[in-house]
């Protein structure tokens, strides 16, 4: 057990009469804790180093280091406000859209720094796709929902190529059999679980390398959830997946490694099997067993 965890807080810094700025807090907290377990891996698809995120002066994430391996499913869990969704949104620069949000640290997609000035976010978000909490199909037909990405990214020149991409994507998302006879009906007419699978098909259509999922099943019933979880398992053959979830059982079921966030700090990353049977950190234990922190 690492006892040198979270020994220093922003409160300590105030006590030492140092000027409290976002930078000093980040600097202090950089030494203040150490993530236990195994945050790194050999074949990293994405590597994040020294990540600090601020909303104005308020720091949301403290010095997080994490690798996500190729074809790995990493689940991020933690109480509300722990920074897990904020961290996920950094992985395809979704936080760029929030004016008060400032992101520090290095984010590598393989060898490329995703925050590099030369990096265009549009192709980045094609390579690192995202599925949101609430299914959000475009107010278009099922076909056009899936075809939209390939069209704007110029992935298909001919109609037959586009048809193939749409069919493949819907097949991979496990939705083809259910919608093949009504491809030109509106996507919004599908059930919640089908809409979420349509959103996954839309993400897959642009051949991403990484799929980010932010609580993808929280609006779905258990059957639809089971289908999405089955899909995550299948997709992990070809894609790297990072999933934020409030359901610990879901994290336990779908992920290879689990990362536990607490108050903006990455407390523990370990094999999922270990996290749910014998976690290294007492905060992880307290959270997953439903004890007082």
């Amino acid at each position, binding site marked *: *057990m690492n006892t040198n965890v979270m020994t220093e807080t922003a409160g300590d810094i105030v006590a030492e009469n140092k000027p409290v700025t976002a930078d000093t807090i980040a600097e202090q907290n950089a030494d203040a804790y150490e993530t236990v377990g195994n945050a790194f891996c050999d074949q990293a698809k994405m590597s994040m180093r020294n990540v600090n995120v601020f909303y104005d002066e308020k720091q949301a994430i403290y010095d997080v280091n994490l690798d996500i391996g190729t074809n790995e499913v990493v689940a991020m869990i933690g109480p509300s406000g722990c920074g897990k969704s904020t961290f996920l949104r950094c992985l395809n620069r979704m936080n760029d859209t929030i004016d008060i949000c400032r992101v520090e640290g290095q984010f590598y997609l393989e060898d490329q720094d995703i925050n590099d000035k030369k990096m265009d976010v549009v192709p980045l978000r094609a390579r690192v796709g995202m599925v949101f909490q609430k299914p959000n199909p475009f107010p278009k037909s099922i076909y056009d929902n899936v075809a939209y990405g390939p069209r704007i990214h110029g992935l298909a020149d001919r109609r037959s190529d586009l048809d193939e991409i749409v069919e493949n994507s819907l097949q991979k998302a496990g939705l083809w059999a259910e919608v093949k006879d009504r491809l030109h009906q509106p996507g919004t007419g599908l059930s919640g679980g089908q809409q979420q699978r349509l959103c996954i098909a839309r993400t897959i259509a642009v051949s991403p390398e990484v799929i980010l999922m932010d609580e993808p099943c929280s609006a779905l019933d258990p059957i639809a959830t089971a289908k999405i979880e089955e899909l995550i398992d299948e997709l992990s053959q070809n894609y790297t997946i990072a999933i934020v979830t409030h359901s*610990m*059982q879901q994290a*336990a079921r779908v992920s290879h490694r689990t990362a536990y966030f607490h108050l903006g700090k990455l407390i523990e990353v370990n094999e999922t099997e270990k*996290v*749910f*049977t*014998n*976690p290294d950190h*007492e905060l*992880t*234990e*307290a959270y*997953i*067993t*439903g*004890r*007082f922190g």
Partner: protein
Amino acid sequence: MDKLNIDRHISQQYNSALDDLKKEFLEMGGVVEKQIIDAVQSVAEADVDTAQKVLTTEQDVDAREMAIDDLCTQIIARRQPTASDLRLVMSVSKSTRDLERIGDEASKIAKMAIAISESDDVPHGFSELRNLGRQVHDVVDMTLTAFARYDVDLAVEVVSKDKVIDREYDTAMRELITYMMEDPRNISRSMNVIWALRALERIGDHASNISEQIIYLVKGLDVRHQSADEMVQQLNQE
């Protein structure tokens, strides 16, 4: 994770379910422990009444085993336990089976007591039986204490003591075999004592199994099929 804090869940019902599980297990342990004392006494003193009591208690032990299994199933179904909670449920579930087997072994000893009391001869080997009985009762007692206190050191001690019991069992067996070889008429009466000794030795093994589960519960380490020295080595590596 030495402190299990099973009473610190946000859900009070969960606290009480796990607490009930622990209590039920220890109560069953108490019943089984008494069975061992009674069984050994019934053989040593050819006391049929006490032997009958042991046999009657077996039904109670069986019922307790089923009740604990049901409790484990309910907790898994309702709470999906994780981490130390999961290890508590798993280790109690497995250890309960060992406790029930200990009860079965005690009943076997009690049956031997009845058989012995029905013959007029005074068989050889009673002192060994009493001695081994005392030691076996001690390790079962230590095991239950180790469980109640989540005491890993005591659990390791049980595993090392089981080896001592095994050696004493071998010695007693050799002695009885010599005795039987001296005069084949001793064979049938000595066999009852041998079965009783064998049952005691098996009880030691079950106590050792439970102790391994205690180590899993507290430390999350699977130390089965290891010697006490290897366990200590593995525990020190943590």
